[in-house]
């Protein structure tokens, strides 16, 4: 190891084009083999998506004769339409959008307030407060499930989307607090001092200085909270028992194995579950890949 690191950097031959360019031109056969491997692996990962797309537009008879790999002989929308109407898909879509949207918004506000006190206010005992929030994020939801179920039944919020909104606002903001507190801990002090000299109080500094400056981080959090809440399953499954307030993943999963679901309708149901998240993916691709790496380094 030390022998490797101590090798003089000057040993790199000079007077040649930059190493990157040189490599780019010299593609050995082995490189092509590895590229092919990477592509094959990518196709393997995308393959289930392709199968679902192809087979959602076939009739069961077409599926039986042509098999899963053939393209549909004619476009058949009955499976998709049947499932769409059966679960009242627009309603489920709206439930998901509305709960995930409110959770994302509330959780960001709570995270900002918490992180302002911890990161900028540096309240006493902040390390323990952060540990507490981290614990909340790490706990298995099963450990909270029954008491929450009982509590929400008692106050009459069981089987309403508000139960989901409240619970996930807390769980997501626990992560948000952890992340934002460390971001705010390194907030440029001069900016805050200048604002204080101008006579702004803390509340004004928070909303007029800190929030606008940290907007990029906040928007990443907003997107993440939205998608994470969208993808949640255990608690929505337990709390949303009546059809009209279920979210997309819950509505789709409770119909699996149903007798009325033939092969291609089941495929169509999977497709309807996949599409919304793929749309988010294509819209937010950059934010997502940048965001998860930012979260990881901390």
């Amino acid at each position: 190891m030390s022998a490797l690191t101590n090798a003089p950097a000057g040993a790199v031959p000079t007077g040649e084009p930059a190493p990157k360019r040189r490599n780019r031109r010299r593609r050995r056969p082995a490189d092509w083999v590895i590229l092919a491997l990477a592509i094959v692996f990518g196709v393997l990962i995308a393959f289930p998506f392709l199968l679902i797309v192809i087979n959602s537009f076939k009739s069961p008879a077409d599926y039986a004769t042509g098999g899963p790999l053939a393209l549909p002989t004619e476009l058949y929308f009955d499976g998709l339409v049947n499932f769409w109407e059966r679960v009242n898909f627009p309603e489920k879509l709206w439930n998901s959008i509305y709960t995930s949207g409110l959770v994302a918004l509330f959780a960001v506000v709570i995270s900002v307030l918490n992180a302002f006190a911890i990161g900028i206010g540096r309240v006493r005992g902040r390390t323990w407060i952060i540990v507490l929030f981290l614990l909340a994020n790490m706990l298995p939801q099963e450990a909270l499930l029954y008491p929450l179920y009982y509590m929400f039944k008692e106050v009459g919020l069981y089987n309403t989307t508000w139960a989901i909104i409240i619970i996930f606002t807390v769980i997501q903001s626990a992560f948000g607090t952890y992340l934002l507190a460390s971001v705010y801990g390194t907030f440029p002090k001069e900016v805050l001092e200048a604002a204080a000299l101008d006579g702004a109080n803390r509340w004004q500094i928070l909303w007029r200085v800190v929030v606008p400056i940290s907007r990029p981080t906040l928007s990443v959090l907003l997107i993440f909270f939205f998608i994470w809440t969208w993808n949640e399953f255990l608690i929505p499954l337990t709390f949303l028992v009546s059809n009209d307030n279920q979210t997309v993943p819950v509505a789709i999963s409770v119909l699996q194995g149903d007798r009325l679901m033939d092969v291609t309708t089941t495929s169509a149901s999977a497709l309807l579950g996949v599409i919304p998240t793929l749309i988010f993916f294509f819209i937010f691709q950059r934010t997502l890949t940048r965001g998860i790496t930012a979260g990881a380094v901390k």
Partner: protein
Amino acid sequence: MTRLADEGLIPHRGKGGRAVYWLYLVPGLVLLTLIVLVPLVWNVLLTFTEWRGIRPPEFIGLENWIELAGDTTFWASFRNSVAMIIAMVIVPTLLGLVLAAMLFDLVGKKFGGRLASFMRATYYLPQVLPVVVAGIVIGWILRPENGALNTILTDLGLGALAHNWLGSPDTALLSIMVVLVWVQIGYPVVIFMAALQRVDPELYEAAELDGANWFQRFRAITVSVIRPEIFVVTLTCTIAAMKVFGPIFVLTRGGPGDSTMVPSYYAYSEFFQSQQVGYGATIATALTIVICVLVVLFIRAQNAVEKRERSGL
């Protein structure tokens, strides 16, 4: 000066001081207490009771815990958690390291960065799905009578290999593991590719001149530089692996027998199917304890490695 270092970042005059910041923490802490801390403590208390959800809970001491210790389903569920860790942590991390290095070192440098980021996005695709939906997608392919996999096998003349993948005890767990590997693989690839940007290319050139082959360079340089990310990935994925619920719920419900039972599905079924709330709470508490112990062990291991690295230099 030392006192100043412990002050808030905003200078203040007159009344209040740092204590005023507690006001900002009030909503967050109240919500946290109501939604997380109270239920958590309540759940632990429930482990000492027998409760079917209707009449008031009855105190039974440690009976639930004693029953748990001898419960073969419970132990089976934790054995299956080890399989979940293989599928969500070990395979994706190792495969992710290789794929990230392939994309970054080779595809990115010799075939262009755009191709590399396109491949990265493809690998990441299953990660954006809700896990249940991922389960449904793979479950559709594995359907017993007319599933895609069985049909393809039959068409290829390998009909003998066709199988009730999710319905037989010998392949059900393996099928679940395939779903999880598929879902999980993109996460380490994305994180490791970002981390690889920190690797100093000169270090690599130097090692190459010293005659180190690709694998030696990979082990000595790459892995040691991106070690923090490896820790983060393995830790977060291990926690996620212990909590797996969705795919089990949509694909096998823990069956056949106990062959795909996991702690969180077991707790769920005790809560809402058997109505054994006290026992379900005991399973959930045991799971929580195991996760906490794993996290502590992980962080200690990380600190130990860091210390050794520092003294080694």
